[in-house]
């Protein structure tokens, strides 16, 4: 655990201008960067396709462990497509595939013999719209990951896990008296926190959030942002958001994606520390986007 902290702090320094460095350089320093169980995500030359259509091109990125990384950019620029490629959810869609590599802990998620199911147990995901399982109670929703993975858990362990996960998602106090009631009876914000509890109950190392607050009111949004602040001490969090204030509030690093036109692939314009991105970005298009002047 100690080397985790040290490597993550030195990582921030070395990774600042990673986006545009040549591939050979990425390989050399990348190998060094993804040693140790720190869950740093290193993306190398990632091209993401829907059948023959190239949706996102040439992504090179390092996502620091135990911090929040925000992905911003206009609609349709491939942020969601990219985040889904980080736990191999992208290929769920017929014809979708990727080229390139995503290293987590030095292991290529797209390497030969990698089981996407195992990847998803390690890299959890929260979706844009809250999607609790309608046939299950609140407690069963939280336990879904464990139960559906055919792990037998005894009753007291299950209760502990439900409480721990719901507390982790700041939902315990609100639902502790109705754990056996259906999850779809909760409000939208509560449902989203239930989905977060469900995601962290399987104890992933990385948590991907695809616009987790876009369907929620400001109060629920605040609750989830606070939650992210707590969770980042344990998990590596990647969040897609359209809300630039949210990106500024919750993230330590921000990547800006854009697209040159319909039918063109999306790409990363730049990635930097969040305060740099919002105060003094290098690229003109980033300035335009974060200041609201984007076309």
């Amino acid at each position, binding site marked *: 655990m100690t080397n985790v902290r040290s490597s993550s702090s030195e990582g921030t320094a070395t990774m600042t201008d990673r986006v545009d460095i040549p591939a050979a350089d990425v390989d050399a320093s990348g190998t060094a960067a993804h040693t140790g169980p720190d869950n740093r995500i290193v993306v190398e030359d990632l091209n993401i396709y829907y059948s023959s259509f190239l949706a996102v091109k040439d992504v090179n990125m390092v996502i620091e462990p135990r911090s929040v990384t925000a992905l911003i950019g206009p609609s349709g620029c491939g942020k969601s497509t990219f985040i889904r490629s980080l736990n191999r959810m992208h290929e769920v869609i*017929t014809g979708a595939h990727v080229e390139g590599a995503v290293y987590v802990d030095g292991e290529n998620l797209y390497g030969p013999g990698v089981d996407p199911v195992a990847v998803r147990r390690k890299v959890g995901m929260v979706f844009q719209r809250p999607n609790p399982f*309608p046939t299950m109670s609140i407690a069963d929703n939280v336990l879904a990951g464990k139960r559906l993975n055919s792990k037998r858990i005894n009753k007291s362990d299950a209760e502990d896990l439900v409480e721990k996960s719901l507390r982790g998602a700041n939902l315990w106090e609100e639902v502790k008296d109705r754990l056996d009631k259906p999850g779809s009876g909760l409000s939208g914000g509560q449902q989203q926190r239930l989905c977060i509890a469900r995601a962290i109950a399987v104890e992933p190392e990385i948590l991907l959030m695809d616009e987790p607050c876009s369907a929620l009111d400001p109060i629920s949004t605040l609750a989830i942002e606070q939650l992210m602040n707590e969770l980042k001490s344990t998990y590596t969090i990647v969040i897609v958001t359209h809300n630039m204030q949210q990106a500024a509030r919750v993230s330590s690093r921000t990547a800006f994606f854009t697209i040159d036109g319909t039918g063109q692939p999306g790409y990363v314009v730049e990635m930097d520390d969040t305060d740099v991105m919002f105060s003094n970005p290098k690229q003109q298009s980033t300035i335009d986007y974060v200041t609201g002047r984007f076309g």
Partner: protein
Amino acid sequence: MTLTEQRPAPTEPSSSITANRMTRVQVGAVGLVAVAVGALSWLSSGSPNWARWIVVTLVTYCVGIYIVARIVEGRRQALDRLMLALVTSAFALVVMPLASVIWTVIERGTNRFDAEFFTETMRGVTGEGGGIYHAIVGTLIVTGLATLMSVPFGLFTAIYLAEYGHGTKLAKAIQAMVDVMTGIPSIVAGLFAYAMFELIFGPGTRSGIAGAVALTVLMTPVVVRSSEEMLRLVPNELREASYALGVPKWKTIVKVVLPTAIAGIITGVVLAIARVIGETAPLLVTAGLAQGVNWNPFDGRMTTLPVFTYYQYVQPGVPPSNGQDRAWAAALVLIIIVMVLFTLARILAHVLKPKGLR
């Protein structure tokens, strides 16, 4: 006529959003006049004829409400009322034959709706008495076996089509075949099963299982289509949520997709049962007719309610009223069985329905 009396025009002809509206009383009056016109046409025709009364009433109402509303309210509201009257009339016309059939079956079926009818068979019965015990047993066995065969086939095919083969050539071919199967005449299914069992067990073979196979051919495509539709209704987000938890695909289908869709699938299965339980022709050639109870679907002929009804009506014996009464009562029992099935399916679907969805 009160109909054309308009409400007092607004004192100020002013606002662009106020207009004359017909009152409920006025609409009701148009309806009453229509009913009266229908009754007149009934009386004037001499012979009592409910159908004529209802049809004339509906036509008069449609015409009348349009004219009156046109005068009172204007063109748009008149068209609105005409359309409402037309769709309601269409519904009434569709329900009429159904109500008539049910009424006739109840009226004539109750002649022989006694205890003996449910406990006796037709063994040794030529005139009075006799019962349908053997036919009820036969119907339940044949339909039950058909359900046992077609639900796994149908459901698995639907799962393949909705979850695995989506968009592939094989899936499209299967879908086309299923559509063709939905349309095959039931007698063809019967002849297929008859020919198949004749090839295996020799000429003239008749058995309950042959009937069940014929019904399976008819039932499977219905189960496939309805189950596939229900599986497609399950939001993709639930599948993705499950995948994102690291749940394998087959387990996602078994534990997330199927429980979410199960209420609709059950309804579809019961609709399919209702579709085949009244089949006569295929069972006539495959299961045949027996006078007594046959519990063994693999050996010997087996009577079902539709076949029983058919034979009691075409060979009623002397005097014919005995057989005809038995035929009507058997038809009534068949309707009741289907209604009980529907009720059970509704209850089951309600119990299994995903909770909290309103």
